[in-house]
Every structure is written in C-alpha cells, then in structure tokens.
C-alpha cells in the first residue's frame, strides 16, 4: 500500500513538471495604458482574443499618460501603450525601453454646446477653433492631467502663443477624459477630446470639429527593457507587440466601433 502511494505521488510530480515545461514561463503581461485608451473600450474588445490566441493573461492598468509612463520607470509594467510622442522619446532616451512601435492613430475632435457660441464649427484647424474660443471667452474644459490628450491640447495653445491657465473661462479638472466630458456636459462648454471616448460617453454636447491636420493622435507601444528589473516580462511584452501589429489585430482594430457607432474609431498606421 505504502509503495503504491509513493509511486502515485512521484507520478503526479513528474507529470506536473512536464506540464509546466510546456507552459509559458511568465504568463502575465502587465500593460500600462492611458485612460483614453481604456475609456474607448478598445482594450476590453481586444483582450479576450489576445488571451485566447496566445495563452498569455493581460493585466491592464490605466492612468493619465504621465503616470502610465511612470509605471514603466518604476518596474510596475512590462509594456506601455500610450500616445505622447515627446514623453515616449524621453522614456527611450533614459534607457527604459529600446524602441517605440507606432501602430495606430485616431483623431481628436472638438465638441461643445449645440449653439456653438464661439463659432468653432467650420474652422480649418484646431488652432483656429481654439483662438475663437479664447476670444469669445467661451467656457473650455481641459483635462489638465498631463495626459497625452492634455499635452496635445497644450501644444495647440502654445502654437497660438496663448496661455489659458487661470483664465475664468478655462476650467482645468485634472482628470480622465470621461470625467472631463461629464463636466463639459454640466457646464455646456467646449472640450478637446478623442472621438472614441466621446462616442462611448453619454453626451449633451455636439461634435463641432474633426479631422483637421493638427488633431491627429498616434498610439505607440514600448516594451520595457529587461535590463532594469529582474521580473520584467520582456518575452510577454514582445508577444503582445507582435500580436497587436499582426494582420488579425489590424483587422479587428479597424472594425472596432463600426457596429456600435457607425464609424471606424482607430486607424492602422501603414506597416513599415
């Protein structure tokens, strides 16, 4: 009887060891992305397919762009998915990642009250629209949270050599896109937002301006280098980037939004 037990236990141990050998060494990939990407619902849409295809498990955290990138520095993420080129390049220069992989883009839009008091509709560029808003002193709600969207907004103000900080019509909330839109709805002010989040959100504001050149928003992925932290899942990050740039993913991403909102929300960058 005793001998039989020993043999059984040995057998179970050996079997489980071999089973481990065929599994992925570290199946959990920590993806740090921005609230905009999260709020758009794209990741929730892609995640189950990715996990089924690769056997990896995706742990997604979202925060403002600044904090999302910071996770890469502190070793709390394996791969980043963000949309702030300057910050990304800084990150790479500091040696936390080897290369950024731009793979899709979308457009920001300007939304506002139906009556459009500042006459934003019909502007040629976002900059022109911003100028009209400032001149009219119309309420403008900014994310104010150092996110990619916020940085894009600031870039436009900078190009006009205008600093709206502290102006009575400029409302800076320091929060996510969704929250900013809520405030916009309440105050009936103008908001600079990505289209996907706007469509996914309940609104009383109207879409006033879209698809100008200065409102293009590029998303990139960066795998965190394996050199800094011992437990970084570099293999997992690579697997994620590979899958996200595959044809299958491109197809899925292009289809996202069509059924629910009637239009494509994210566009694939032509592969190099």
């Amino acid at each position, binding site marked *: 009887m005793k001998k039989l037990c020993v043999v059984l236990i040995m057998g179970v141990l050996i079997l489980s060891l071999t089973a481990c050998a065929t599994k992925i060494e570290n199946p959990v990939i920590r993806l740090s992305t921005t609230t905009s990407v999260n709020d758009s619902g794209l990741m929730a849409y892609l995640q189950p397919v990715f996990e089924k295809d690769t056997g990896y498990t995706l742990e997604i955290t979202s*925060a403002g762009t*600044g*904090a999302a990138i*910071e996770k890469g520095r502190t070793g709390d993420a394996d791969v980043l998915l963000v949309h702030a080129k300057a910050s990304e390049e800084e990150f790479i220069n500091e040696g936390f990642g080897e290369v950024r992989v731009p793979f899709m883009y979308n457009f920001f839009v300007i939304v506002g009250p139906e009556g459009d008091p500042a006459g934003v509709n019909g502007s040629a560029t976002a900059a022109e629209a911003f100028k009209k808003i400032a001149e009219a002193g119309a309420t403008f709600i900014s994310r*104010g949270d150092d996110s990619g969207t916020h940085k894009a907004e600031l870039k436009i103000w900078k190009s006009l050599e205008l600093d709206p900080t*502290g102006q009575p019509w400029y409302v*800076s*909330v*320091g929060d996510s896109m969704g929250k900013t839109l809520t405030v916009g*709805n309440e105050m009936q002010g103008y908001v600079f937002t990505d289209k996907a989040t706007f469509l996914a959100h309940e609104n009383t504001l109207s879409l006033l301006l879209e698809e100008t050149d200065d409102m293009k928003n590029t998303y990139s992925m960066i795998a965190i280098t394996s050199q800094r932290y011992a437990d970084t899942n570099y293999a997992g990050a690579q697997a994620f980037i590979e899958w996200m740039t595959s044809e299958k993913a491109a197809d899925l991403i292009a289809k996202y939004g069509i059924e629910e909102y009637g239009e494509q929300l994210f566009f694939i960058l032509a592969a190099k």
Partner: protein
Amino acid sequence: MAKTMDVIREIFGLLFGQDPELRQIIGVTLRMSTLSALVSALVGIPLGVILGSTEFKAKRFVNRILHTLMGLPPVVAGLIVFLFLSRSGPLGTLKLLFTVTAMVIAQIVLITPIMTGLTANIVSVKAPLIHETAAGIGLRPFQRMLYIIYECRVQFVSTLLTGFGRAIAEVGAVQMVGGNVQFKTRVMTTAIMMQTNMGHFEFAIALGIVLLVIAFLINSLVSRIQESAGLA
C-alpha cells in the same frame, strides 16, 4: 540616493516656498471646511441639545434615522447632491455644481448628523440632572435649555473641531460635486489624489504633510479640551 535628496529638497521647497497654487489650494480647503463646520454646528448642535435633553414619543424613531444618517457613505451623499444640482436635476438652474457651495452642501449633509449625534450623547449625560435641579429651582424650559448648553459649552467646541477635521479630510463627496477644478474647487484631498494619479509625488507629499499637520493640530486640541473637561 541623490534622487531622494532631490525629492526631499523639492518637498521642502514647496512647503516653505511661495508656490501660489499650493497656497491657493490650502486656502480653498480652509474656507470650505470652516464654512461646512460652522453651518453644520449651527444646525446640528441645537438639534442635538433638544434630542439629548427632551423625551418625546418619536424619540426612538428619530434616533434610528440619525444613526443611519451618521453612517451615510460619503460617496452616496456626494451622489445625491450631484443628482440634485446637475443640469438635469431639480436644482440644476442654480448652476451650483462644481462650485465651493456644492462642496459645502455635500459636507453639511455628511457632518450635521455627526454633530447632532455627538451633541445628543454629551447632553444626555448631563441633561437629566441639570434639568431636575433647574426645574426644582423654578427655571422655565427655555432657561433650562440655555443652562444645559452653557454647561456643555466646552464639549461643543470640541464637537465643532471634530466637524472641521472631518470636513478637511473628505475626498469622495467633495470630488464628485466639486470637480477638482483648478483654482476653483481644488482642495487638498482632491489635489493629492490627482497629483498621485499623475505621478507628481512631490506635490502630493507636500500637500499630505500640510494636511497631516492640520489634522494633528485639530486632534491634539480636541484631546486637550476633552481632558480639561474631564477634570473640570
């Protein structure tokens, strides 16, 4: 190591320097908390005195409602006030959402029951004997009430301070109805949350230190008062 020194230096710089935004945030916080505490006290303490010193038919029922309100989760209070003040709500035309007034309203909803409950407890200990002695002397009900309030005055101060401490620490309700708008409704707690989310830890830590110091001061004041009241 060098980085830690930089961080510490930056925090001290913020604390003792002239960063206008830091001071503005502290200012809004103090204004809001003082107003909330005062109004809550003006309403809650008299209610508490009446509750603690008189007997009436519905007293048990009122006490139950009071205890439920005392346990009201702050985010629920924030949600209720938000729904009332939002554009689509009954008081939407007042345009109070995302203002300091809205935050004060939410805090009053939260703090008044606490003040009422604390006061009723304090008063119910002393009130029966004061009541009997005062009635025996021939004082009228209104006079008796005044004497009860006078005798409990020290603890009322500590109740007020407790309310202030509660107001200053509030995050959820205040974030919801205030919106954390820069220069307008950004208070210490919501700013700390935001700065942490953004990864700006130095600013968050500096604010946190200020908040801790204030909370510590209030608590030691309250202890001092309680002790002296106990000895008196």
